């Protein structure tokens, strides 16, 4: 990647392995994360292949029951803890937050590197657990099954999750301190890009929620190792207490997974509609509201678990509350399109896909928040479909959209646009075919985590597996053309999209110190208005 003009930037300033493994440059750390989470995504995807192949037929004939139980457990553990939670913050957030606020790096660069190493260490423990026999408790580790009944590698998995949790915490601390204290001159809170607001809200959750899962898995480990009775009723413990502690983190965790994606959408939609964002203050406030309310609704995972009906009422009520800020965001993004000048570039297509699929996923959340209805669909494929619509139709689409949008900045190369559009459509199609039938399956009564199932559920399962194969192809395509673009892609200018935002005011790829001189900010974010600096759309996109 050396430049013919000899320009030095963060990628070619040093090619040595040590310069990568001991880097404190937030941009390089983002690349390190990009590689690791992609590897984990592929692993989690392979587990999903196993699941969907088994579910082609009603009988458990592809793998044994114990193997299947390990497949869905490990799919969940890898995807939640090692892909979705880090993805956008650790890759795009690490790369862009300092640049978007005009800083040279995050507040604590060495802690940033430590954060990556903790992620890798945690992943290694979990991989070790998987290679030496696997774990079959479900990613939710309900007790007493996980502490007293399962004969699999619960401890190493719990240790891996414990360690990775600290990776998350350190990233959150770094973002909070950075955003509070290192904004460029003139960059007040209400001039910040919404991507930064989203990461700020996410960081609050990371810092406040992750320690609770850490202590919970630590107690599970202790109980399993020493047979003490914190959660095992046979030893005087309370299994429902585990569920409260677990979901106290794991519900806010889903907001860790979606809020950064929403930040990406705000950046992409404004750029490709050439519009200021509609309702800036409302979108910023809604991110904080989601972070706050997200901590108050964990009991909606436990409506039939044995908590009191009064607790159930309160959690259901609050769960409807937390839906509102998300709806407000979707309406504001849609309004941003109104009378815009809309380009159909692939990042925009991903963002629009997010809006549609997140809307469906979010609306199905209402089904689950409604007490009388949740009783029927809890622990069925309806829930599985709901969270995949949000996590895959939402987060992953936002992640891919963001990677496409900022790829030129990160690598200095353009990806092939036509192929990007094609894979976007393939992903959209494959995704819906995979997961929409699961709503129906769930309402029909097919429970989750079933290795074999009654014959009448087969047709819908076949549709789902067919969709999964298409989705898999859809994900392979960007992997291929992004790698291809590193060598053969067209050179990217500093600002191929003529986008607003400080990250676009430096070269692609950026120099190590990001900016020659610290920028001074004089305008609001998304300066696309008719009199704004970005009023003129870019020339025809580079092929």
């Amino acid at each position, binding site marked *: 990647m050396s430049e013919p003009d000899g320009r030095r930037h963060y990628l070619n300033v040093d090619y040595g392995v040590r310069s990568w493994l001991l880097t*404190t440059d937030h941009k390089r750390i983002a690349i390190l994360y990009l590689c690791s989470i992609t590897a984990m995504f592929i692993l989690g995807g392979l587990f999903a292949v196993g699941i969907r192949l088994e579910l082609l037929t009603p009988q458990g004939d592809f793998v044994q029951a114990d193997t299947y139980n390990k497949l869905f457990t490990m799919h969940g553990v890898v995807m939640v803890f090692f892909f979705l939670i880090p993805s956008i913050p650790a890759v795009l957030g690490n790369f862009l937050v*300092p640049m978007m606020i005009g*800083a*040279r*790096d*995050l*507040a*604590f*660069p*060495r*802690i940033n590197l430590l954060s990556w190493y903790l992620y890798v260490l945690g992943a290694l423990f979990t991989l070790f657990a998987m290679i030496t026999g696997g774990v079959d408790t479900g990613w939710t580790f309900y007790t007493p099954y996980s502490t007293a009944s399962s004969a699999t590698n619960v401890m190493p998995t719990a240790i891996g999750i414990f360690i990775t949790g600290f990776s998350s*915490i350190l990233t*959150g*601390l*770094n973002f*909070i*301190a*950075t955003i*509070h*204290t*290192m904004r460029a001159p003139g960059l007040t809170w209400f001039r910040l890009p919404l991507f930064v607001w989203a990461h700020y809200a996410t960081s609050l959750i990371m*810092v*406040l*929620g*992750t*320690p*609770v899962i*850490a*202590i*919970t898995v*630590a*107690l599970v480990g*202790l*109980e399993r190792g*020493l*047979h*003490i*009775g*914190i959660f095992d009723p046979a*030893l*005087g*413990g*309370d299994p429902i*207490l585990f569920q409260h*502690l677990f979901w*106290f983190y794991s519900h806010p965790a889903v907001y860790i997974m979606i809020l950064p994606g929403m930040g990406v959408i705000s950046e992409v939609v404004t750029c490709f509609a050439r519009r200021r964002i509609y309702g800036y203050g409302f979108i910023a406030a809604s991110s904080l509201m989601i972070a706050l309310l997200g901590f108050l609704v964990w009991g909606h995972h436990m409506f039939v678990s044995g908590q009191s009906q009064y607790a159930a009422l309160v959690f259901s009520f609050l769960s409807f509350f937390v839906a509102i800020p998300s709806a407000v965001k979707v309406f504001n993004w849609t309004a941003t399109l109104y009378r815009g000048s809309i380009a159909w570039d692939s990042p925009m297509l991903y963002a629009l896909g997010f809006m549609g699929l997140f809307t469906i996923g979010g609306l199905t959340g209402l089904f689950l928040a409604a007490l009388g209805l949740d009783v029927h669909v809890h622990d069925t494929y309806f829930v599985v479909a709901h969270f995949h619509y949000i996590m895959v139709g939402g987060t992953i689409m936002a992640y891919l959209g963001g990677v496409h949008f900022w790829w030129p900045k990160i690598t200095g190369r353009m990806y092939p646009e036509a192929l990007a559009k094609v894979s976007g459509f393939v992903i959209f199609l494959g995704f819906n075919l995979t997961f929409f039938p699961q709503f129906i399956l769930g309402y029909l009564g097919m429970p989750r985590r079933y290795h074999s199932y009654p014959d009448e559920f087969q047709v819908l399962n076949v549709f789902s597996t067919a969709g999964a194969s298409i989705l898999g192809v859809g994900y392979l395509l960007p992997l291929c053309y992004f790698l291809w673009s590193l060598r053969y892609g067209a050179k990217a200018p500093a600002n191929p999209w003529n986008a607003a935002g400080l990250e676009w005011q430096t070269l692609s790829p950026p120099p190590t*110190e990001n900016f020659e001189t*610290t920028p001074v900010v004089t305008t609001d974010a998304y300066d696309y208005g008719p009199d704004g600096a970005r009023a003129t759309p870019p020339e025809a996109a580079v092929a």
Partner: protein
Amino acid sequence: MHSLSDAQPLAHQFDDTDQQRRAVSFGMWAFLVNEIMFFGGLFATYTVYRVLYAHAFHDGSHHLDITLGTINTAVLIASSLTMALGVWSAEHGKRRPLMAWLLMTLLLGGVFVGIKAVEYHGKWVDHLVPGPGFVWHGEGAQHVQIFYSLYFAMTGFHALHMLVGFGLLTWLIIDARRGRFGPAYYAPVEMVGLYWHFVDIVWIFLFPLLYLIGRH
């Protein structure tokens, strides 16, 4: 813990030392909030079981050595005092007193952990360590075991934090010896001080909850 033990006091990502100080301070406070949530999970578990098994918790608590616990509380409070004096010394550029106070804090912390080790050993001898070797004569053995599980988990995590604190103090002492701290730059001492006070405060909550149930 922070990127501040560079050769120069000002790290490259910061515009000036004031920004650096604010960022570090922010980071430390955010980290302490995080730690509150960490211990909070344990406190929540403790609360649930204390309410459910009040009798067993009462009995279990009475088998803890209240003398050692009280001594430890005094030791830790004293160490917070010496730590605060260390921060003051750093702020006023007094190198030798700074090293002395830091060393004193480390020593007192060591005494604390030493006494804890004695207590743990005593519990081991009395078969009160949860697990296969746990023996309790009397009713509610299972629930008493839960009390002891929480006792070891909570004081154990606390002790772990103390050990991390020892590492931080050692690092500070080494740097203090090199004359790195003075009125212009003493943030690391301040930050470690914050951390140490936090660990102390956690103990102030642990002590009555574990040792003083139903005592008059």
